[in-house]
């Protein structure tokens, strides 16, 4: 995973709540078996509307998405994170993220920055009134700056550390391989197994 420290890019005001992962990338775009190339599916239905924010020339090349509350609800599809990142989004700002989406974002190197509802509204308003303005995000300082605004954001310390270091979760876990083996030795023999592969 690529490390994340600071990022500055054009802010995209997406004034919607409950942006579910079916909107971020509809199911028909999930059929690829690769990990890249999902940008064409990003907000596919909404992008068909000429008035959609990403169709506005001022925001098209944006990389910091500012949305309403409950971003990333619904399906667990990590393709939502991949679609955002493949499009060029590096940061999503919202007052509340769905749990699975937030977890997926942390795995993929997308920063999910949680702000207060008031600060979210300030950012949305500013970007709506100043199309093309940049937003700067400093992960170490947990701070977002945009025009005259400077607001704090929340992120859990472990995800922050992993993002700053660009660490691979599996390698981190495999440091505890002995503990896993020890735990397995204590598991109840009553627990089910699926049996050998039918192949």
């Amino acid at each position: 995973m690529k490390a994340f420290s600071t990022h500055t890019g054009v802010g995209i005001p997406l004034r919607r709540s409950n942006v579910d992962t079916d909107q971020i990338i509809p199911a028909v775009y999930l059929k690829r078996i690769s990990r890249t190339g999902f940008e064409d599916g990003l907000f596919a239905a909404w992008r068909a509307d000429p008035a959609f924010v990403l169709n506005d020339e001022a925001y098209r090349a944006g990389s910091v998405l500012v949305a309403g509350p409950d971003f990333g609800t619904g399906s667990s599809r990590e393709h939502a994170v991949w679609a955002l990142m493949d499009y060029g989004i590096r940061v999503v700002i919202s007052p509340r993220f769905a749990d699975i989406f937030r977890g997926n974002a942390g795995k993929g190197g997308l920063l999910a920055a949680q702000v207060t509802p008031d600060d979210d509204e300030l950012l949305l308003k500013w970007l709506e009134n100043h199309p093309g303005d940049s937003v700067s995000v400093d992960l170490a300082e947990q701070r977002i700056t945009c025009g005259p605004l400077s607001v704090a954001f929340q992120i859990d310390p472990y995800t922050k550390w992993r993002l700053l270091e660009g660490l691979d979760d599996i390698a981190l876990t495999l440091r505890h391989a002995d503990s896993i083996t020890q735990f397995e030795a204590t598991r109840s023999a009553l627990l089910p197994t699926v049996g050998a592969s039918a192949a």
Partner: protein
Amino acid sequence: MGRTMAEKVWDAHVVHRAEGEPDLLYIDMHLIHEVTSPQAFEGLRQAGRPVRRPDLTLATEDHNVPTLHIDQPIADPTSRKQVETLRANCAEFGIRLYPMGDAEQGIVHVVGPQRGLTQPGMTIVCGDSHTSTHGAFGALAFGIGTSEVEHVLATQTLPLRPFKTMAITVTGELPHGVSSKDLILAVIAKIGTGGGQGYVLEYRGEAIRALSMEARMTICNMSIEAGARAGMIAPDQTTFDYIRGREHAPTGADWDAAVERWQGLVTDDDAVFDAEVVIDGSALTPFVTWGTNPGQGAPLSASVPDPESFADEGERQAAQRALAYMDLAAGTLLRDIRVDTVFLGSCTNGRIEDLRAAADVLRGRRIDPNVRMLVVPGSMRVKVQAEREGLDKVFTDFGAEWRSAGCSMCLGMNPDQLTPGERCASTSNRNFEGRQGKGGRTHLVSPVVAAATAVRGTLSAPADLDPQPALVG
């Protein structure tokens, strides 16, 4: 101080715990399907890592599979490629797979319980948010992303922060004609799509205790629609009776030992939940959604709400947007909303009891001439069972289409999709914009409401129907 059921299951699975780090949790069962696994296997290959416990991993094909002509190759080349990739990955890594056409194939959350693989006290994950379904057995079960799928394949563990716990107590007795689907839709409307965020929900109370296992699965299934990653119900005699005799259930002395262990899993009397919600089950009525998220629902007897009636500015805007998308006018009686399609199926309501409940409404009746109805069993076993009971005949005599098992029109990754503007009464779990097909409009309903709607052509409950013609005995 006592512990909740969720805390007990959590504590029993901690492999490693350290200050400032998430707990490393052992995973007892990992279910996989074709959509969220290919990139995980690719990651393993690139890193040269094996699957740690193929014996705790089970795969099925469900999201992409067609529900017609399943003896032929999948027509859509990208769907076919995804399914073929799953087959190749399972063969390479030694994972048991139930492919299309197999007697055990079906939706992943129907397959696990019906084989007895879902048992109390287990940790169960799958790259699918409706993994919460398995919590109905007192398992801690939740959906994960593809990176986490790869992580579980490689290590059989997941690093996780503890959840908070929320008790949802449903008092009283559900009135006749009110199902667990109505109950969970009412819960989501009450606490909102973000209300359960960060929590494991534990459903309790006499209305829950009275429910069958399949009805409990419907409730836990939709915990994710309230923002909760997992929902749980304490195991009891209903749970044990359901598991007993299934392929992977313990037998003989092992069965007695397992039941004794399971009985200890319930929440202690002095345990404290981080949040509590109480719902009067006896006051519930059939419940449907009018909007584009599962929290935008109302009793079937109500009208489409006026967006201006929402105090919160965000909710008002969301309601306005939803009504525009759904092409509905505020004040319209929900019962007057005409549908084009009825979908009975999915991991929420695609089990045998769901099909029986719907068939009981349809028996001896005819479908509204302007409606098409798809009946898609949740697994091939459900299909076989339904055919043994003659339910397929009830559906086809009524005028519905009887299909093979899969996720189907719940999310339209296969050919079962709505067309733009088409309106559907669906027993599935998500009414998101375009979920069932681009431009499609979804109303979430229970199986009996779906059935009654197919008869009248407008959103309806069985109580709205003319008396059933005398059945030929």
